[in-house]
């Protein structure tokens, strides 16, 4: 049957397209359904285009500080239109790349909106969602509306910005990450609601180009999922760069004019405050895309808006699987990708270990960068176990000083009894590239002993990682 597959994946984001490729590698006949953009939010409106923007900011910052490296950058300025154009170009390149990968792996692309009608069957209908503009052209040679069957169906529909009632994004004064990624002009001032990775990255980006930025956070700590000490380090550094923070602060309502928006804020300690800015970016988390998929009809179980799965992508309905953001936090592209592989290999009957959420790293690409894996110090203490904590500052690292990046901190947390590495938290230059050393170590279940016996190349920032481990055992050498 032409419309019959071994595996159908709904959603072509980083979870979905990886699932499709892995299925094809394992000899399955695979189709993937998409309604808006190949490669998902990640490549089109998330991870990748924001990294392109932040790279422009980084280069700009280097030009700003050229004199401290003995250089003269001459007259420099930012052309925000060109910066955005570069970012969009890169997003388009990613989109095309995934189209190519689907073709290469002989995965059929079905263009439309999928609905699960019964186990093993979907009906693909017209697209009802208004696409985010500017839209990348859809792939050619796609299949269209119709009924398709597959023994196994993976739901990988992702998530979208969460909307707070009364503070609905309007694409004009109140932005989400979509609008924040494509400013037509550089605003004078911005208020950002939410200090998670998205909020902090936009704060860092806009501040580099001189925008007055105020970040409003409901909780007492910015970057709430990060280690408190690391978050405090980031806050101080960003405050030094001129970003204002309001923590323990709740936006109760907003007033808009043609050129500005005023956020009315209630402070937890008592009192109110008003912040007026050109725009307000709503970055208060994301919401799973579970609607209009026919999940209710099949009785697929949801919890807190996410599809409930068992660590192998299995839902409560046989033959229906879910991965990525739609299957719950942490809502990160690399979590979705790994879940995709675990799930498809489970479907294929291969031996796999369930996704271990305690070993999913997280990265924030503000200046300074933040990266972490495992438990924060507070979480580790909450478990009641005895721990050893090591800290090493970048100032003790020759490469950091040579780079002109002497501020930074590497913190490692070990179980005192077993030597198991249970957490690593980094802030400073390039730490998003360093963290993987600890992720590998953790996944291979190394102990402090193996890390101490590992040779780290000199001179690199990575030496701070080893020193932090040594510090946990009272043996740091360069501090």
């Amino acid at each position, binding site marked *: 049957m032409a419309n019959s597959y071994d595996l159908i994946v709904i959603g072509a984001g980083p979870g979905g397209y990886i699932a499709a490729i892995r299925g094809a590698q394992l000899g399955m006949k695979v189709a993937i359904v998409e309604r808006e953009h190949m490669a998902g939010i990640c490549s089109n409106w998330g991870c990748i285009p924001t990294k392109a923007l932040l790279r422009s900011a980084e280069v700009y910052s280097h030009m700003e500080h050229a004199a401290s490296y003995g250089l003269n950058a001459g007259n420099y300025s930012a052309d925000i239109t060109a910066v955005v154009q570069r970012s969009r170009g890169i997003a388009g390149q990613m989109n095309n790349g995934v189209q190519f990968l689907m073709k290469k792996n002989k995965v059929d692309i079905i263009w439309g909106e999928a609905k699960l009608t019964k186990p093993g069957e979907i009906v693909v209908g017209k697209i009802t969602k208004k696409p985010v503009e500017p839209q990348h052209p859809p792939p050619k040679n796609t299949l269209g509306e119709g009924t398709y069957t597959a023994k196994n169906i993976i739901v990988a529909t992702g998530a979208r910005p969460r909307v707070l009632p009364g503070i609905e994004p309007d694409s004009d004064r109140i932005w989400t990450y979509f609008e924040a990624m494509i400013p037509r002009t550089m605003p004078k001032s911005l208020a950002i609601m939410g200090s998670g990775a998205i909020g902090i990255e936009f704060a860092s980006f806009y501040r580099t180009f001189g925008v007055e930025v105020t970040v409003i956070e409901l909780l007492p700590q910015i970057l709430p999922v990060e280690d408190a000490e690391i978050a405090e380090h980031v806050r101080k550094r960003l405050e030094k760069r001129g970003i204002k923070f309001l923590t323990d602060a709740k936006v109760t309502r907003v007033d808009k004019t043609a050129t500005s928006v005023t956020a009315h804020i209630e402070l937890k300690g008592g009192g109110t405050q008003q912040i007026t800015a050109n725009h307000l970016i709503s970055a208060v988390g994301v919401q799973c895309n579970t609607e209009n998929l026919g999940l209710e009809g099949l009785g697929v179980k949801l919890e807190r808006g996410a599809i409930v799965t068992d660590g192998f992508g299995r839902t409560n309905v046989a033959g229906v699987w879910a991965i990525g953001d739609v299957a719950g936090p942490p809502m990160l592209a690399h979590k979705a990708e790994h879940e995709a592989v675990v799930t498809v290999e489970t479907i294929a009957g291969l*031996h796999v*270990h369930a996704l271990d959420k305690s070993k999913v790293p997280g990265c924030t690409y503000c200046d300074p960068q933040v990266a972490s894996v495992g438990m924060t110090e507070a979480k580790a203490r909450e478990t009641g176990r005895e721990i050893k904590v090591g800290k090493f500052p970048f100032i003790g690292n020759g490469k950091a000083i040579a780079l002109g990046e002497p501020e930074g901190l590497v913190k490692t947390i070990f179980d005192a*009894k*077993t*030597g*198991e590495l249970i957490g690593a938290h980094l802030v400073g230059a390039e730490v998003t590239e360093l963290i993987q050393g600890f992720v590998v170590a953790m996944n*291979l*279940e*190394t*102990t402090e*002993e*193996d890390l*101490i*016996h590992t040779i780290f190349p000199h001179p690199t920032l990575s030496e701070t990682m080893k020193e932090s481990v040594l510090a946990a*055992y009272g*043996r740091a050498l360069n501090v």
Partner: protein
Amino acid sequence: MPINITMPALSPTMEEGTLAKWHVKEGDTVSSGDVIAEIETDKATMEVEAVDEGKIGKIVVAEGTENVKVNAVIAVLLQDGESADAAPAPTPAPKAAAPEPAPKAEAAATAEAGGLMRENSATQAGAASSSASSSASSSASAKAEAPSNGSDRTFASPLARRLAKDANIEISTIPGSGPHGRVVKADVEAAKSGKGATKAAQAPTPASPGGATLAAGMTKAQVLGLYPEDSYALIPNDGMRKTVAARLTEAKQTVPHFYLTLDCRIDALMEAREQLNAAAAVKDGKPAYKLSVNDFVMKAWAHALIKVPAANATWAGDAILLHKHADVAVAVAVPGGLFTPVVRSCETKSLRQISEEVKDLAGRARNKKLAPHEYQGGSTAVSNLGMFGIKHFAAVINPPHGTILAVGAGEERVYADKGQVKIGQFMTVTLSCDHRSVDGALGAELLAAFKAIVETPIMMLA
């Protein structure tokens, strides 16, 4: 340049051996061809000859050291005018150490070198004893070599090792669920909670010959605990003893044996033997040859195997080898063990040739002078305990052989013949077969062929 004398490989498969004896001491002058040392492997003792001439500058590996790795430096030979000081300093090897203390010594050395804190030395010892106990004195190797015995190594994460040690669980008993069977934290925790199976409880994999998981017997400590301390003499097991133990335990645990017994009347054989021996030319008052019953058995057995080629078989995992010749091993008892040298293409040899070859092999076996190629291989074996008056016994197959023929004593017996009570000479033989390669009917066919030849020995001329 001083020349390193290294541990020779006596066979292609040899990985380590015991330096049994030095024939030279430091300062001795040797020339090419001089015997300088004796090396003992699992079965043979071989002499090591000097290849170059010079003076023995240093003996690196002491006499009696076990498990010396092939290619490890055992001594240094100096050329004219060189002094011992100029000799390269190979890493020191332990003195003839018992295998048990070696891992501890090694761990202590590691801990010292690494300057580790806490209980790391204990951790190392745990890891070493669990993963590398088979190559206990791997540091005996002058070269830094990876643990030689890959199949014995347990792959486990460092954390799993530490958790297993803390829980007092032998890591090698925990089934691994990680990539390629690596033991990970979750496996140790399952083992601790009793939820996980241990390896001993798992069925051995019948499809992997020689690689199956073998049940371990009682430990030395367990055995010693059963007897008062002064009630026995403790004889350390030498290489041959260990090999006999390992090979035959493997045989009984992995080879499905079955046994076939029948009686052969040997009056005609005895008569033929008498005639042939009487016809031997006499030289210096001694006959040129004296054939034994066993020589006839060897030849008859070889002819039977050629006649029933399907039974001349060796199990080889996913295939069976059908041998084109009858390479018959013969069990030779020696003090402290036994050897099974092989008479190759036995079916092509005359009784006299077989007789002489067995005599030569047996003599050299008793002096432990057999070369490995003389006792390796073969498709079957003959084990004869008739000289002790044993009437009947069942022998253990010596892998990779497919069969072994156990021969009892020839004796006069009363038998019935067409209602008449008669007396004749009989010999009882029992054939042990590896059921994987030789089925019951096939084994019976082979044994019947043997009986026919033995009872009508002139058939051996056909």
